[in-house]
C-alpha cells in the first residue's frame, strides 16, 4: 500500500509547494488539454517529455515516485490501448495486419489504439505534475477561494484528514490479521471492512466531540494561505504549452 501515500508525501515536500495553486493548475491543465487534442507525434510525446522533465527536474520529485504513481494507470492504458486497436467482429479491411477468427486490426484501428494510449500516458503525466506538487489541502483551499461552497470544501477536507486515520487503521488491521495467520479471503476482507466502517464512525464521533470543545458550531474557518504570484512561472508554463502547440502546427503544416 506504499503507493497510497507516495504521491501525497511528494506533494507536501517538493519545492513547488510554494508556487500558487492557480499557476500550477494552468500548467497542468494546459498540458492535459494539449495532450487530449494532439496526435501521438509530436504533441503527446512532447507533453510527456515536458511533464517528466518538469516533475523530476525543477519540481524535484524522485523518478521512483513518479514510476510508482504511473504503474496502475499504465496497466489500464496498455490493456485499453490494445483493446481499442484490435476489433472484434465486423469485416476485416483489405489492409488488415491480421485476422484471427473475429479478431482483426488494420492501420486505422492500430492508430486509434496508439492515439488513445499516448494521450492516456501524456494526460496522466500532466495530472501527475499537479498531483505530485500540490497537496490536496492546497487544492481545496484554492477551490474555496474560487467560490466552492464552504460546507463542501469542509467535507472534502475532513474526508482527506480521515483518510489517513483510516489508512493507518487499515494497515494495522491487515498486519493484525496476517500476524495471526489470516490469509486474504472474502471473510478477512469482510471483517476488515466492517471494523473499518465502525472505526470511521467512531472516529468521526470523537472528532466531532473534539471540535465541539474547540468551539465548532458548524463552520470550519481556517487561515487562508498567502502565496505570492510568480509571473516567471506563469510565463514559462504558457511557453511550454505554446511550444507543444507550435510543434503540432509545424508537423501538420508540413
Amino acid at each position, binding site marked *: 500500500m506504499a503507493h497510497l501515500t507516495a504521491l501525497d508525501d511528494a506533494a507536501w515536500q517538493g519545492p513547488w509547494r510554494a508556487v500558487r495553486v492557480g499557476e500550477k493548475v494552468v500548467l497542468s491543465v494546459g498540458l492535459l488539454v494539449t495532450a487530449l487534442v494532439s496526435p501521438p507525434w509530436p504533441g503527446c510525446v512532447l507533453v510527456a517529455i515536458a511533464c517528466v522533465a518538469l516533475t523530476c527536474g525543477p519540481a524535484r520529485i524522485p523518478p521512483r515516485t513518479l514510476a510508482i504513481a504511473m504503474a496502475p494507470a499504465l496497466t489500464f492504458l496498455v490493456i485499453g490501448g490494445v483493446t481499442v486497436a484490435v476489433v472484434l467482429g465486423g469485416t476485416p479491411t483489405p489492409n488488415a495486419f491480421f485476422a484471427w477468427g473475429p479478431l482483426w486490426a488494420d492501420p486505422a484501428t492500430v492508430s486509434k489504439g496508439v492515439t488513445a494510449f499516448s494521450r492516456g500516458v501524456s494526460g496522466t503525466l500532466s495530472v501527475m505534475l499537479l498531483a505530485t506538487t500540490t497537496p490536496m489541502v492546497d487544492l481545496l483551499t484554492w477551490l474555496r477561494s474560487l467560490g466552492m461552497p464552504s460546507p463542501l470544501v469542509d467535507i472534502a477536507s475532513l474526508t482527506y484528514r480521515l483518510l489517513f486515520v483510516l489508512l493507518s487503521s487499515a494497515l494495522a488491521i491487515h498486519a493484525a490479521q496476517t500476524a495471526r495467520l489470516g490469509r486474504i479471503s472474502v471473510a478477512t476482507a469482510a471483517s476488515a471492512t466492517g471494523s473499518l466502517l465502525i472505526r470511521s464512525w467512531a472516529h468521526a464521533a470523537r472528532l466531532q466531540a*473534539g471540535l465541539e470543545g474547540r468551539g465548532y458550531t458548524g463552520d470550519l474557518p481556517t487561515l487562508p494561505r498567502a502565496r505570492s504570484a510568480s509571473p516567471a512561472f506563469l510565463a514559462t508554463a504558457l511557453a511550454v504549452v505554446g511550444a507543444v502547440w507550435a510543434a503540432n502546427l509545424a508537423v501538420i503544416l508540413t
Partner: protein
Amino acid sequence: MLTARDLVARFPGREPVLSGASITLPDGGRVALLGANGCGKTTLLRCLSGAHRPERGDIARDGVRLEHGRRGLREHRSAVQLVLQDAADQLFSADVTQDVSFGPMNLGLPVAEVRARVDDTLAMLGIEHLAERATHQLSYGEQKKVALAGAIAMAPSVLLLDEPTAGLDPEGVAEMTAILDRLHSDGTSLLVATHDVDWALAWADAAAIVVDGMVRQGPVAEMLDDQALLASARLTPPWTLRLAPRLGLRGRPRTLDEMAALIQARLTENRTTA
C-alpha cells in the same frame, strides 16, 4: 476561577460516571486531576469545558454560571480550552497552520491577528518548523504539541489537559512540563488529568482525586499521602511518599532532590547524635 458544584453526568443508558462532583480551579492554579481508568476524569474535564452537559449541577467561571446555550458556550469556550488525550481526535485539518488557526478564526478575529497568534503559539511551543507540515505526517509527540497549540492560540485563561505527558519519553515529558510551567507563569490556570502520581506531586499545587463519582481536593502532598483515600481511588502513592515513612522520616518530599536532602539530614543527624 473555574468551579463545578455537584455535577451528575452519565452516558445515555449507563450508570452515572459523576454523582455529585465538585472541583475548584483557582486563578493561576496548577491542579492535578487523578483517578483510576474510567473513573470519570475525562467526563469531568468535558463538563468543565462545556463539551458535555451535566445532568445536574453548576459550572461557573468567576462566579458566572455557565448556560449551555449557543452564546453561553461560545463565551465559555473562548476562556476555557480542553486538550484531549488522543491528539488525533482533535486535529481535523490537513496542515498545522490551518488547524491551529481554526479557534482564533472561529472567534472572529481579523486575519492578521490570527496569523500573529498562530506564529506566536508555534514559536512558544518551539514548533515553528511544523507550520507547513501535514497533520498526518506528524509524530505522536508533535501531534500532542499541535493539539495544544490549537488550544493555546485561543488565549484561554483556563486550560484543561487530559494526560498531556502520556506516551511521551522522558525528554518529551520534560518539554511538556516546561511548556506548562511557561503557561503557569503567564497566568493561565491549569487542570491536568494524569496517571503519573510522581509527576503530579512534583508539578502541581493541588490534587483533585476522583473516587466513586465524587472529587476530593486538597494540597497535593497531603492528598497523595492519604493512604485510605488513594486506596479507595485505586491509586498508589508516589515513591517518595512511600519511601519516607518506611525510613521513619517525617515530611513529605516531593522530588528526588527533597528526598535525598531528607535522608542526608537523617544520616548526618545519626552521626552527630550517636
